[in-house]
């Protein structure tokens, strides 16, 4: 007896390309990710962000490009350097800043910090510190779609460091054996904290995909459209029932592991090399050459973020009397659907 779905199937015969509006949106999401993280770093330096601070500076194309093809009913487990995916699903920057400051208005209401969040109402399950644990949670969601015969996709992100962990291999094997509708985005930013790729693996992890029985593709992680195309194809493969895809996005972590890390272990010329390949600058030039008013987009990002920051700073700290609440669930709230700004979904809706 199969489990039946309450949801109708949709028709996915072909993946259309990006419209001009989509490409503008890609740039804006990358700009908003960087601006939000820069604002959060400023708040951290002002002492308003407890704990530490982590960002994805220089890696914006990875999360923005890969999350953009997702439909509203798809589900995600997002990593700490992938703020763009949260923004695409519809999380407001103010709630992210409030989250980092431990405010009641943050996504977890102060229960967890920094990038450890997922807005359940937007189809996100938040990460934990142990990596890559969320791969297996994403496998479970994909299994639920498969059991109910739904053409939905689970997507999750993890770093190069994660590929050394046993749970990575458990998830890769399970995804391959069960042919799960899952997209696995390996964000290879060259360093696992201070350990370079050469100390992490003897074989490029993208090659392992074939040994687990599914497709692996290596993409320029600083090219947002290349990320979109690889991800869109992987999503379609999953929706067709043809199983998982491992996408290795090659990029560079341009900041330290956290704000406390001066990354003196990274050669200066490597940083300089990647600086020339900044995903936002290169895409801005490309769109500007095609007549897009890039400065107007940057201005609208600044204005929105200023308003969002004001909102975040107005949020109260959580009431200590609530510290013990919610250890156990008394009801069973389900995940909600996320925003899906790609024109394909806008037209489909």
């Amino acid at each position: 007896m199969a489990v039946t779905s309450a949801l109708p199937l949709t028709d996915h015969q072909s993946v259309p390309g990006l419209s001009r509006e989509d490409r503008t949106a890609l740039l804006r999401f990358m700009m908003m990710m960087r601006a939000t993280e820069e604002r959060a770093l400023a708040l951290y330096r002002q002492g308003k962000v407890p704990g530490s601070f982590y960002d994805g500076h220089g890696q914006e194309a990875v999360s923005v490009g890969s999350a953009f093809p997702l439909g509203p009913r798809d589900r995600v487990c997002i990593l700490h350097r992938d703020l763009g995916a949260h923004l695409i699903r519809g999380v407001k920057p103010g709630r992210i800043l409030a989250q980092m400051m431990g405010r009641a208005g943050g996504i977890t209401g102060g229960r967890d910090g920094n990038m450890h969040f997922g807005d359940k109402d937007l189809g996100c399950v938040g990460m934990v510190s142990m990596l890559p644990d969320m791969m297996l949670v994403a496998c479970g969601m994909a299994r639920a779609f498969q059991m109910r015969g739904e053409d939905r996709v689970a997507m999750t992100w993890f770093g190069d460091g994660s590929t050394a962990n046993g749970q990575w291999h458990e998830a890769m094997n399970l995804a391959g054996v069960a042919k799960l509708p899952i997209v696995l985005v390996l964000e290879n930013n060259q360093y696992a904290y201070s350990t370079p790729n050469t100390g992490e693996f003897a074989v490029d992890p993208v090659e392992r995909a074939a040994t687990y029985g599914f497709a692996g593709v290596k993409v320029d992680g600083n090219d947002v459209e290349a990320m979109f195309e690889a991800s869109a194809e992987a999503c379609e493969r999953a929706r067709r029932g043809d199983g998982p895809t491992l996408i290795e996005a090659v990029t560079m972590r341009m900041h330290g592991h956290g704000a406390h890390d001066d990354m003196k272990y990274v050669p200066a010329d490597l940083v300089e090399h990647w600086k020339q390949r900044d995903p936002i600058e290169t895409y801005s030039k490309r769109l500007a050459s095609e007549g897009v008013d890039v400065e107007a987009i940057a201005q609208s990002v600044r204005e929105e973020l200023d308003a969002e920051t004001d909102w975040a700073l107005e949020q109260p700290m959580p009431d200590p009397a609530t510290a013990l609440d919610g250890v156990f669930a008394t009801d069973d709230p389900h995940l909600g659907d996320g925003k899906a700004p790609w024109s394909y979904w806008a037209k489909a809706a």
Partner: protein
Amino acid sequence: MAEMTYLQAISDGLREEMRADESVFCLGEDIGAFGGAFKVTDGFIEEFGPDRVWDTPLAENAIVGTAVGAAVEGLRPVAEMQFADFVSCGFDQLVNVAAKMHYRQGLAVPMVLRLPSGGGFGGGPFHSQNPEAWFMQAPGLKVVAPATAEDAKGLIAAAIQDPNPVCFMEHKHLYRRAKGEVPEGRYATELGKVRVARAGTDLTVIAYGAMVSVALEATDDIDGASVEVIDLRSLVPLDREGILASVRKTSKVVVLHEATRSCGVGAEVSALIAEEAFEDLDGPVVRVTAPDVPIAFSPPLERAILPQTDDVKEACRELLAY
């Protein structure tokens, strides 16, 4: 009513829930065609098919983590660890992902982790453990440990219906030895309520799982003393009032469990009694437990480690004379 073994009762409860709710499914190692290492899911694949009785690869974190993902996506997974001992390999997903999910994100994880636990059959250090206290230290997990066939069915149903991750400790020694009348059809036994296995007035033995029958046997006749036996049934939530009510009545308490001693259930129950019922006591709270050693393989060694009926009898006798 029908007479069933403890094992049949677990199967029956699980089957009833799967029939009533198609979002309930099982996953684990060798649970399909083989029916599980202990045959709890024997015949399930024929009735429910391979999707809902899913033979997974041998990877405990994958089993637990996949169950978490399926649970947040609206299904109600019942995951089996082939032996409770193997949960150590899936511990990360259980204590870090499942247990903390609702507190951090307000997202329920309605899943059950079935854990065949306990010794007494020469299973050795890796097939005999009673790891329930590990889970009690991970806020967000419920922990259930039935002692009878009737409760095994009612508590597995309640665990499946609960919106939280529940560790279901099913004692292997009871699987085919514990038998009793079990109601037909669906019913759920509320989590967090003790069962008075035998009422008494002179002394209370507090136990759970396989040690309940040991407590009953040991105290059946101790020089005519009236001994109450309390079956905890659920360790999280713990029925504090149920425990304290018995203490107030008898004023003397032995806490009995098969798990090791330090920081175990007995330590928690003893501390509760010391804090809340000190004035009601007429003697020290006494623990009878396994000592802090691994469970040895060879039968004489294993017997020396696991609490025996005579150990309980002796402890009760001493406390009664106090």
